[in-house]
């Protein structure tokens, strides 16, 4: 079945540590790919997106993501996490239907 998978429901890291959140999709063609973040009490904020071209995408707040076609993955990374990064992160795809299909989200907890 076509889907977006975020295998990690909850991740805990120490402030200053590196972070990688995983996202895999299962669609025939390469969809548009997105990462959104929802901080407590806030709406969904677009972190970054990939449509085509350079497979390493830079986003806001120091985040980046790498598209790997061979692995059908679009993992989100940050070299050094800040306490304010504690939030829920959602991977999403658009398979050219103008609607987003989301993963189940990964909740990030940051310890000082």
């Amino acid at each position, binding site marked *: 079945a076509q889907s*977006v998978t975020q295998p990690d429901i909850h991740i805990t890291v120490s402030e200053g540590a590196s972070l990688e959140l995983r996202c895999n999709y299962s669609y025939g063609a390469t969809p*548009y790919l997105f990462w*959104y973040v929802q901080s407590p*009490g*806030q*709406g*969904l*904020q*677009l972190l970054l*997106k990939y*449509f085509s071209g350079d497979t390493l995408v830079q986003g806001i707040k120091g985040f980046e993501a790498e598209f790997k076609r061979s692995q059908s993955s679009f993992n989100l990374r940050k070299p050094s996490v800040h306490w304010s990064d504690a939030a829920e992160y*959602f991977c*999403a795809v*658009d398979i050219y*239907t*103008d*609607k*987003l*299909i*989301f*993963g*189940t*989200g990964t909740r990030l907890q940051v310890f000082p």
Partner: protein
Amino acid sequence: EAGVTQFPSHSVIEKGQTVTLRCDPISGHDNLYWYRRVMGKEIKFLLHFVKESKQDESGMPNNRFLAERTGGTYSTLKVQPAELEDSGVYFCASSQLGQQETQYFGPGTRLLVL
């Protein structure tokens, strides 16, 4: 520039009652979307307006849900009568024509049906 706004932020109602959620998109955005996140599940698409027309309503769960966008500006989503399983967070998003793949989301309305 104001972002997508939604009202109310929270709503608690009893089963069988009616609730109306409102979304104001970013000014100039002709595309408007409704999504819903039921507790513990993924965010799911409900429907998509282009201006005042429903482009895609394939995600609407049943006929208790009615979405409108009169005049192509703000949109309402009415649930009548509400059931327990309707509880969740309802998100609205908007995007520009020709850039519909980049959607901007509102803060959501948290609905609890008791």
